[in-house]
Every structure is written in structure tokens, then in C-alpha cells.
């Protein structure tokens, strides 16, 4: 089966006055339709660069990106933009504060010409219902919503044009733990119901273990380990992966034992 997304020898080098930064170095990987691939790494690992390249915000220096077997051009057309959607980390800045929730959702429908204009109001209500929000919220401003509600709106907007691939950039990092649990459940349900594929960018390994199908670990622009989630957590191979796991603050004895075992094996 053709992967929904393929990265082939992707490199991105940023040149500023005086020096070069290699943000991504020869990254190749496939994302299977319907999976949740976690992209894990610390700041400077290249995970956000990877997201920007997939979204087409800027072109790669070398290498290519294929969507369902077809090479994506450096300048994306409307159809390409519709196919890959984004949910950002901070829902407070992701939504236009001057636009009502309904107008933000409707904008996606208008831009991509989805449904007859007369039906769009009811589509907006359906989108809100899909993420567990009341249709009454459509007339509200983002500032009138809680952080969790805003993130649900951002997710609804990503779903508005029926794309199959969603890039989630730290979607729950800015949320409180009780709200995070709700949003993670929502993401898992939507993935199952709509057959979505997630590129889940995060630094939170505890979240990764419980939502991802596979995990790609990045360090300084290089893909250092790629494995199925269970395999990665039971037998992490790369020293950097092990170091990341050993640094996670944990709350149960069981988790502490797992971390101590990693540290002990490395000593």
C-alpha cells in the first residue's frame, strides 16, 4: 500500500549572515495511512522544521515530499493545502481573536469551497458537535472560551475540509492535565471515526507512549531511531532515546522502576 506521506532524503539548511544551520539532515521516512506517527525530540532537533516542510511553509533545501505517491511541489496549490492540516500548540494564538468561533470555522469552508454556501452554517454546527462543543459557541469570541474549548475549535477547523493528514504540533502541551486528558481522548476518537493520519509532534514521551503507533526520535536534525511504540519503550536502542526517557519526571513507582532500569543499564 502506498504510504500517505513519504519523506525522501529531506534536508533543510538555514543560511544567516555568517553561518549555516542544518535543521534537517537526510531524513527519510514513510507515514502509513491511519497511523499516528510521533515525532519526538528536544528544541533544535528539527521537529518543527519537519512540520513546516510537510505543511509547505517553506521548501526543503534538497529531497522531496510525496503525498499518496505524488511529489508535492515547492509551492503548494489550494488542493495540497487542503489535504494537510495543522493544529498548533497554543490555541490562544492560533485563532484570530477578532473573529467569532463560527467565522473561523466557516473561513476554512469558504476558502476551499466546501458545501453550498447556504449549508455552511449547519456544517459549522456539525463540526462543533464533532469535537464535543455546543453550536451556541459559534457566535462567541475565542477570548470567551477556556483553553480546552479553544483547542477543540482548532481541531474542528483542521477537520473542516475533510483532509486525512493532520499535523499536530504539541497539541496538548499548553493545557492543564485534566484538560489534556480530554483532548487526547478526543483526538483518538476522531482518528478512529474519520480514519485520520496524525503526525504528532511532541516532547512528552508519556503522551507518546499512549497515543502513537510508531515513534521517530530526532536529535540535532537527524532521525536517530524509528520504531513501533511498544518496541521503542521496552527496548530503546539509541543512547539519545534512552537519555530522553531517563529524564522524564514520573509519578508512579512502576514508572520510576522503568527509568531506573534504563539508567542502570547505561551505567
Amino acid at each position, binding site marked *: 500500500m502506498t504510504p500517505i506521506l513519504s519523506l525522501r532524503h529531506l534536508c533543510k539548511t538555514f543560511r544567516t549572515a555568517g553561518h549555516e544551520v542544518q535543521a534537517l539532515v537526510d531524513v527519510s521516512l514513510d507515514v502509513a495511512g491511519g497511523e499516528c506517527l510521533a515525532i519526538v525530540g528536544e528544541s533544535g532537533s528539527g521537529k518543527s522544521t519537519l512540520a513546516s516542510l510537510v505543511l509547505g511553509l517553506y521548501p526543503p533545501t534538497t529531497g522531496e515530499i510525496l503525498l499518496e505517491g505524488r511529489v508535492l511541489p515547492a509551492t503548494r496549490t489550494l488542493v495540497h493545502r487542503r489535504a494537510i492540516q495543522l493544529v498548533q500548540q497554543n490555541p490562544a494564538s492560533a485563532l484570530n481573536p477578532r473573529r467569532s468561533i463560527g467565522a473561523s470555522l466557516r473561513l476554512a469552508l469558504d476558502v476551499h469551497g466546501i458545501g453550498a454556501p447556504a449549508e455552511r452554517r449547519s456544517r459549522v454546527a456539525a463540526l462543533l458537535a464533532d469535537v464535543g462543543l455546543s453550536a451556541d459557541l459559534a457566535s462567541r469570541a475565542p477570548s470567551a472560551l477556556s483553553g480546552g474549548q479553544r483547542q477543540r475549535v482548532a481541531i474542528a477547523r483542521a477537520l473542516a475540509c475533510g483532509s486525512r493528514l493532520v499535523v499536530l504540533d504539541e497539541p496538548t502541551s499548553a493545557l492543564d492535565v485534566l484538560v489534556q486528558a480530554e483532548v487526547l481522548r478526543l483526538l483518538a476518537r476522531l482518528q478512529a471515526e474519520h480514519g485520520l493520519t496524525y503526525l504528532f509532534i511532541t516532547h*512528552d514521551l508519556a503522551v507518546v*507512549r499512549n497515543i502513537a503507533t510508531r515513534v521517530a526520535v530526532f536529535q540535532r536534525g537527524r532521525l536517530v531511531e524509528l520504531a513501533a511504540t511498544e518496541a521503542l519503550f521496552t527496548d530503546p536502542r539509541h543512547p539519545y532515546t534512552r537519555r530522553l526517557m531517563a529524564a522524564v519526571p514520573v509519578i508512579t513507582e512502576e514508572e520510576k522502576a522503568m527509568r531506573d532500569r534504563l539508567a542502570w543499564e547505561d551505567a
Partner: protein
Amino acid sequence: MNTLEIRDLRLSFRLPVGTVEVLHGISLRIARGERVALVGESGSGKSVTARIILGLLQEQRGVRLAGDIVFQGRNLLRLPPRERRAVRGTRISMIFQDPTSSLNPVFRIAPQFREVLARATPDLSEKAARARAAELLDEVAIPDAARVLDSYPFQLSGGMNQRIMIAMALANRPALLLADEPGTALDVTIQAQTLDLMRKLVVDHGTSVLFISHNLGVVREFADRTYVIYRGRIVEAGPTEAIFHDPRHAYTRALMAAQPRITGGGLPDIPERSDDFLAPLIEHEAAP
């Protein structure tokens, strides 16, 4: 003797729409050299508590405070403003969440450090301040002090800036350190190093710490005792081990249940938000 004792602290803001109660009578104590965590979600009142201790909120309009904050035997809420300000940055200091934005971007590190040292020693010469700053940077494992002192904050990494903030906060050997989500803005490996370093320093100097965080894992790693705060009320208090081993309050249990585990087990259940969250304080016995 306790370094800090807060008794029945109440805070409300008078707004045009009416009075908003933020703290509904919280009490907590920190013994000398003890590391105490105040853990809760955003809006629970944890950061505002630190700001009151530091005396930053008292100067705002429309703020109504009641209760006692006794620091080294003196009630901070009854001190005249001048004396209260003299305590800040000398005997009580604070580390904020984002190190890079807590440092002034238009000054190099050296003059900012000197300003901190001058709070306790006003007649310190520039040369002496620089020498002292270098010693303190050495304590936080920054070997290349000369280069760092001549740098601007944006030329240094987040981890480096956080170490500088820790060095500054401990520069005047405060009796109490308030740490508001330190390291949250940093990568996990750097965060772990930063916490280790902070723990070592406060143990060496016998500093008491009020550690404010929403991150249960970090609290477990750092604190001797923990207070869980929910909507302006302390709901559970006790030794950190006891609370994590046997959480008894409905809210604490919900927080723990909502935290995904690195050992797996699936996505956490969505804890039901219930009136039980507002149930009275549960206190664990102190370890014998």
C-alpha cells in the same frame, strides 16, 4: 521554627463587576531547609500566592488581603511597604518560569548581576561584583563566567539563562526561595539537570523553597512535602511520598488519573469533574 507560615490567607479582587474571591483561606508552612510544593492547575491561585509572599500584589489597586504571612517571625502583611520591599531580593527571592524573558534583553549579564548583589550590599564595587558573580556562576556549573557575564541573555541558551537565574536568586543567600514552574520552558534533559542543581544548592545553603508547579512528576522529584491547591483552597497536604503513594482527595486522585504514564496503559480516563473536588482538606500524617 518555620521559615514561613501562612495562616488563613484570603485574597479577593474588587472589580467593576463585583468582588472576585481568589484565595479562600489557605494555610501552609515551610520549615527551615524544607522543600515544599504547591501544585495545582492554572487559575488555582498558586502563582498569586507567591506574588503575595514577595509583596508584589499588595501594591495593586483593588486587592483585598486577610490572614497572616509570618516570615522569620515577622508578619509580612503588617510590615510597612518600605520594610517589605527591603526583604525582596535579599531574604526572599524568586525564580520565574521563562528564564529568557526574566532577564533584561538590553543589558549584558554582568550589570544585571551587580544590581542583584547591590540589593544586599549597596556599596559593592563593579570589580568586586564581577568577581562575586563569577564565583556564583561557578556554583551553577557555568565554567566560562567571563564570557557569560559579557553576553546578552539572547546570546545564551535557555538552560544557561535558567542557571543564571538560579545563581542570581541564591546570590544574597535568601532564607526562602520561591520557584514558579522553574524549567517548564526547558527541554526535559535540561530540566532534569536544572532541578538536580537547584536541589543541591538549596540543600548546601539550607534554603527553604516554595516550589510552584502544575507538573506532578517534577513535584515528586523535588519536594519533601506537597500541598495540592484547587480553586483557591488547599485540598490535600502531606509528605510528597504519602500523597503520591496514597492520594485521598477526589481532586488529587483525578489529577493523578489524568496523567499519562510512560509505562503505558492507554490514554487516561477522563476524570469526572465533581463537587467532591471542593471537599474539605485532607491532611496526611507527617512521617514519624
